[in-house]
């Protein structure tokens, strides 16, 4: 299908890291059903390294592919690198997304950040609140 790149279709058809982590160290859920996309990311973190990551997604093809790719990009990486993951990196790794689907990659970035914030909060780790933008800043329009 010409709508999506081969990479997107591969990650959509064979999503990596699908599932749930019991006793996860951090869980992030973003989006809402009204918009048609929800992503939930589970992290297992040991010695500041993301040793395992799983996701569940309700959404379109690019939402599922973005979740899959984003989890691949942070798996085995230090927390600092996962925090630095941008939606742009997800889009590039997927060989592009149609313009009207770019918000899916934004959701993937936000889901990972939300899971990391949860990890920090659970463990009482100090952090700069500015690195976690609030929902209103994304312009996704979910809550309008």
């Amino acid at each position, binding site marked *: *299908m010409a709508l999506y790149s081969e990479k997107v279709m591969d990650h959509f058809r064979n999503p990596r890291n*699908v599932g749930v982590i019991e006793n996860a160290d951090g869980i992030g859920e973003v989006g809402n*059903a009204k*918009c*048609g*996309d*929800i992503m939930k990311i589970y992290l297992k973190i040991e010695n500041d390294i993301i040793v395992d990551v799983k996701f569940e997604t309700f959404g*379109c093809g690019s939402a599922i592919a973005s979740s899959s790719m984003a989890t691949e990009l942070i798996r085995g990486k230090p927390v600092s690198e996962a925090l630095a993951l941008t939606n742009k990196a997800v889009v590039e790794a997927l060989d592009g997304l149609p313009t009207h689907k770019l*918000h899916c990659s934004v959701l993937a970035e936000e889901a990972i950040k939300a899971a990391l914030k949860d990890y920090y909060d659970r463990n009482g780790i100090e952090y700069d609140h500015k690195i976690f933008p609030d929902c209103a800043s994304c312009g996704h329009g979910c809550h309008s």
Partner: protein
Amino acid sequence: MRIYADNAATTKMSKAAIKAMIPYMDEIYGNPSSLHGEGQKANEALTNARERIAKLLGCEPREITFTSGGSEANNQAVISAARLGERKGKKHIISTAFEHHAVLHTLEKLAKQGFEVTLLDVHENGLVSAEQVREVIREETCLVTVMYANNEIGTVQPIAEIGAICREKGVLFHTDAVQAVGHLHINVKEQNIDMLSLSAHKFHGPKGVGVLYAKKGIALTTLIEGGAQERGKRAGTENIPAIMGMAAALEEACAKIEENTVKLTALRDKLIVGLSDIPHSALNGDYEHRLPANVSFCFEGIEGESLLLLLDDKGICASSGSACTSGSLDPSHVLLAIGRVHDVAHGSLRLSLSEENTEEEIEYIIKSVKEVVEYLRGISPIWRDLISGKKDFIIK
């Protein structure tokens, strides 16, 4: 194996339609407005096609205007009625919330020009009643436009009854019959229809051609200026091959309506029964007043585009009410109009059959949809919340 179940989007051309077109691309290529023999032959063909189509709709040949398709016909019908109304100081139009965008967007434009538009609420079964029209029709109403059958959920509206009220009140009645023509009985006189739009590619004819029927005496507004084709109401050299293909396709479709209705209703019902097996699923639109080939479902906990892509992988061409692919985050206005909440409306699937589908295909579709819905629910965080009781099911 490929299974085509998206006939509400477009149909495969019939052999008869293709055969009818070829001579007009090959030997009889003249311009119907030309005086020479070649042109006159084309003109005869045009006259012939107009007569045949008029007969099938139950109207006069001169009441037929050929257009580029359903959208143009809808635009022209609505605008013409508005202009006629305007002259008499009547600037109120009645329609429904779930019309095709070719009607809704035209109405939005007219609203900006000072027209008052009343969009009737659609009942949750996907129907509007003639009584609803009666309640809002008034002295200033210049047009009532209600679709014959809905393109997404396939519900068939009480057109003749609505038309009768319009006649009684002296208000023009237009129906977008794009999904109905060639599939349901039509007679514009018996059904009190003043204007009707149809599109050839919905009944195995070619794309890019349609008809606007307008009852004698209704002065159409010209949308495309130029030559004097179509009695000056639609400029541009007539698309003779497409028009000939449309006439042939319509004759064939109308001749087979009864036979196809029996066959398609059986296939449709088998599909509805099979898909109803899926827990927390619901048929969209009334079961009784429904196009013989339309199946529309919502499945809770999943999103429609993923469902379509995975069905495509399994060889099934379907469509969704979801506007996801069109760049909007909002789900279908039709599903919202019948009261489906956003969460559920995103998980929609439309299967629209043709007489070429078989029972085996229906069985394969049922099996495939079940598999894909189950898989997508398995990776959906919403579904997890629903089955764990964290959230309540909307579709019980």
